[in-house]
């Protein structure tokens, strides 16, 4: 661009203006220039692959995320114990090279991959998982998904909120001490009890025993506010401390190592310190800081991770590939704590600071814009990673993402508007497949007349499910007859009672409302969205026409809707549930009596007993039977009215390889590559049906990983 000529031209324009206007023009130019400089400075090259995430991620801290969009990014930058096969979702070795489970199904042993590294050069060890999972479960972390690891023995108690949170951290920066009832002192860091530590930790005793001692841990050190009279925990042979700190402080392979600290505090000093919050006594400590001794996650040696569960949990292995269980780097956190004591919780996650172990690493983040990832060359399987850079966009508007996809600015989008579906059918890039989710209406069974089963059944019978799927949603959704969608392994969900409109009217009459007379208006409650509104309007009309009752619609803004639903202030409320893992339990345990996600007021002891029995059942087939029986009870009593099963709605560039539609709608950036024309032609020849070919996106010559290139070279 010929900038100088432009400047000259504008200069001449300015000089022709009177002084006051010149000032205004200059001011305007200044604003414009500074804004330009600020926004344009950081323009990025186009990435190899651009996908849309549907919304801005809330955080990249694996421990505190919940959503699908966060999962998409985390699967690219972190790696759990296992990774999943992109098509079958079978577990493949990831952070763990291999694993085995004890015969009673309770104790899992994971052999952590030797030689795998973090992006900061640290080795990946079993300690990383011990630390990360404890942090994940710790009350101070406040993880939403903590309950996903409550299958581990002791985890639930560990997460439980202490009643009295008067606990105060050491003002000097994160180290705290407790006097136990027997006079010993225990040290902790930011609420994490320092029982296991692979980093360099040592205590420096002063020459004069009356002077304060210093504790060094990783990069940090603390001067204790009291003298240590007796440090029996010399690295080799501590004795008494072992009971409290079983395996501790950098002394690998030594079951009995640890410290015994004895403080030289007078009783008055102690009380003062306690009052100021710097010290806690044993019982207080026990109440306030969870005791990891009962949490059954530990390591044996540097690369063996062991976990004991409450009951055999067949999907536990799946959970170790679920993004909240991904490990974080301890040094990453602690260095941030060191450098930014008051905002380390944000700083450690900055693109420039975060340490990850996945196939990609974070290069840049811009809120509501994009996340730029680049290939992680230190990843153990980098040889099999093809993409050099990936952009993850945060477009929320349906029409915008579609437009961007169609003009080639984006290679994959995760949803399409129902209005364009008709035009998308038959295109090779749009192949919806069943997705592990169910759309249903909750009924408030506490509120008459909905406490009458016949009313609920009649309402369910006349819902025009097929019309909703075919004419409203239009993406091949399947009318639902159960809570659990089909397609989870060998589980076949039972079917609810179906019936004609006449039967429904008969039920209504039997319940005391012939032709809907005397029935109070039904209020359908839903959160604001075009699709929910359409479905509610269709169902409302059906209820009016078939049962003769009046209906009202009530849409609420998302957060208010959640509140209303949680407090059972509705009659019929729109709901949906997406499975976290491929097991019926993820749906069925939602409706146990008093469960947080029950939200219908319904409860049945027999149902609860069956769900509990299934949880401790070792035999897989029998377990599914128990769950099936439970679901049959649920569908019999109908606190919910199932409407349809979900399908995936992805539009994906045809040239993309290593990607496939699956029931969890999970996709794994590690395996992605671009096909060349030859491979694309092959793929197209193998389509099970005729598809319309569209712009395949991506480079003509494809983009393959080094390993793939080598293999292709040999052919």
């Amino acid at each position: 661009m010929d900038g100088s000529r432009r400047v000259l031209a504008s200069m001449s324009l300015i000089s022709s203006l009177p002084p006051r206007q010149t000032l205004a023009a200059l001011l305007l130019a200044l604003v414009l220039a500074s804004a330009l400089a600020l926004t344009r400075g950081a323009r990025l090259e186009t990435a190899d692959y651009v996908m849309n995430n549907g919304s801005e991620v809330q955080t990249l801290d694996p421990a505190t995320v919940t959503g699908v969009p966060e999962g998409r990014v985390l699967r690219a930058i972190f790696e759990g114990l296992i990774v999943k096969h992109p098509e079958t979702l079978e577990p493949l070795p990831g952070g763990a090279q291999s694993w085995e489970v004890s015969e009673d199904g309770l104790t899992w042993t994971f052999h952590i991959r030797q030689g795998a590294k973090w992006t900061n050069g640290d080795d990946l060890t079993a300690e990383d998982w011990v630390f990360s999972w404890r942090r994940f479960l710790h009350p101070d972390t406040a993880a939403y998904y903590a309950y996903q690891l409550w299958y581990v023995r002791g985890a639930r108690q560990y997460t439980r909120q202490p009643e009295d949170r008067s606990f105060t951290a050491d003002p000097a920066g994160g180290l705290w001490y407790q006097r136990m009832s027997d006079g010993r002192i225990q040290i902790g860091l930011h609420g994490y009890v320092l029982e296991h530590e692979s980093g360099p930790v040592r205590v420096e005793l002063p020459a004069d025993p009356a002077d304060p001692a210093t504790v060094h841990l990783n990069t940090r050190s603390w001067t204790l506010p009291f003298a240590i009279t007796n440090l029996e925990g010399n690295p080799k042979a501590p004795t008494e401390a072992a009971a409290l700190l079983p395996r501790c402080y950098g002394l690998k392979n030594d079951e009995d190592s640890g410290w015994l600290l004895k403080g030289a505090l007078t009783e008055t000093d102690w009380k003062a310190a306690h009052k100021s919050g710097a010290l806690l006594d044993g019982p207080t400590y026990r109440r306030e800081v969870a005791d990891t001794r009962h949490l059954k996650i530990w390591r044996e040696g540097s690369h063996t991770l062991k976990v004991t569960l409450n009951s055999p949990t067949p999907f536990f292995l799946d959970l170790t590939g679920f993004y909240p269980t991904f490990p974080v780097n301890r040094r990453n956190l602690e260095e941030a704590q060191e450098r930014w004591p008051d905002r380390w919780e944000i700083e450690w996650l900055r693109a420039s600071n975060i340490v990850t172990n996945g196939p990609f690493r974070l290069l840049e983040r811009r809120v509501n814009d994009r996340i730029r990832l680049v290939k992680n060359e230190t990843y153990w399987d980098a040889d099999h990673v093809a993409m050099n850079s990936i952009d993850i966009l945060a477009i929320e508007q349906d029409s915008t993402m579609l437009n961007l996809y169609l003009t080639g600015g984006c290679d994959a989008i995760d949803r399409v508007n129902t209005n364009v579906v008709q035009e998308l059918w038959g295109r090779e890039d749009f192949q919806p497949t069943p997705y592990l989710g169910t759309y249903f209406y909750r009924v408030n069974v506490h509120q008459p007349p909905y406490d009458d089963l016949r009313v609920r059944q009649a309402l369910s019978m006349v819902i025009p499910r097929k019309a909703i799927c075919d004419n409203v949603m239009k993406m091949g959704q399947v009318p639902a007859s159960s809570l659990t969608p089909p397609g989870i392994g060998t589980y076949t969900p039972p079917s609810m009672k179906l019936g004609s409109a006449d039967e429904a009217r008969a039920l209504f009459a039997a319940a005391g409302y012939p032709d809907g007379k005397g029935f109070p208006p039904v209020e359908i409650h839903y959160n604001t969205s075009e699709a929910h509104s359409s479905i509610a309007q269709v169902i409302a009309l059906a209820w009016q026409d078939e049962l003769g009752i009046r209906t009202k619609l009530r849409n609420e803004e998302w957060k208010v809707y959640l509140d209303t639903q949680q407090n059972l202030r509705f009659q019929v409320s729109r709901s949906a549930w997406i499975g976290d893992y491929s097991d019926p339990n993820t749906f069925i345990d939602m409706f146990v009596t008093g469960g947080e996600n029950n939200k219908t007021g319904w409860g049945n002891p027999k149902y609860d007993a069956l769900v509990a029995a299934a949880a401790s059942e070792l035999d897989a087939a029998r377990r599914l039977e128990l769950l099936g029986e439970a679901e049959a009870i649920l569908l019999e009593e109908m606190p919910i009215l199932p409407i349809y099963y979900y399908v995936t709605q992805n539009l994906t560039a045809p040239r993309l390889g290593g990607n496939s539609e699956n029931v969890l709608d999970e996709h794994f950036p590690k395996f992605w590559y671009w096909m060349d024309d030859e491979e694309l032609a092959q793929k197209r020849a193998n389509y099970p049906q005729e598809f319309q070919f569209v712009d395949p996106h991506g480079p003509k010559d494809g983009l393959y990983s080094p390993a793939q290139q080598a293999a292709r070279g040999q052919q």
Partner: protein
Amino acid sequence: MSASKSKRFDLDEADAERLLREAREHKGISLWQDASRRLRRNRPSWYALVFLIGFGLLSFLAPLLPLRSPVRSNLDITLSAPTLDGGDSNYLATLDPQADSTTITREIEKDYWELSGMDHGLISLRRGIFGSWQTGHWLGTDHLGRDLLSRIVWGSRTSILVSLAAALCSLLIGVFYGSFSGLAGGRIDNLMMRIVDILYSIPFIFVVIFLITLIGDHRQVLEEEWGLDREKVFYLVIGAVYWLTMARVVRGQVLSLKHTEFVQAARVMGASTLHILGRHIVPNVLSVVIVYLTLTIPAVMLFEAFLSFLGLGVEPPRVSWGLIAVDGTSAINPLRIHWWVVVFPALAMGSTLLALNVLGDGLRDALDPKMRGKE
């Protein structure tokens, strides 16, 4: 129409009498008479006024027209193109004429929503005139197979009502607040304007979102005890927000007016502030006010559309133009354009707002005091 016919110096009684009468008569031509005369001469504005009145009547009389139901969906004909089919007969055909009025009301409201007594009256009138005949899908159907023509007509009721109510609200508060502040000047002006500034400084999207949400919480109380449904609250909220700009604009105008000779003169002659306000200032700022008002009505309509875009607008099954426009936008996509879903609502909305603006300009010219008596 010159009144000063030149006469000789020697005026007789009768002549003087006549002159005085003439002068009085001349003064008797009010601002409004003069304005309406000049408005009629301004063709575009006159057409706009006629159009708006026609459209207002049409939307008011919507229940009388043989339109299809604006809410009844027919999922077999979603997004079907406009046809000129003659129409067919509707549920009214099967309605038992002997049925009691509550049954009839219930049957009718299935195809609409809760209607006022007058609307029910209009519907029974419609049954008398048109029987059960209803129009075909002359403007096509939307994504749920609802008749677009009917939705646009019924939607106009909501939109027109919202914008009129809100605009009037802003007019009343804004003009008096603004002119009083400007005229009073000094400390009072300062205080009043600072209050406006404070109110201004709260981003009102934010306030509206929270108010609408808050109202959602207490809707039962509001509806039962205050008789305020969501729509009414909606008008109040929007109106209470829009008067701020009006007040500022008016005050700016008044500030420059109050230094004009005629106001100074009135003041010197000892006229009270209220008198000056009513006699001199308000008529003179009227042109600006009218222009601003004709801008406010469209703005409120657009704001309603914007809230619908966010999902905070009127609640289905009721319709408004904003809601229809939002439904329509998802139909604008490069794969296939269901043009009728967006073109017809846009035409209705566009022509109304256009007419409002043309009328506003016409009124402005007509009301301009400096143009009085000119051709």
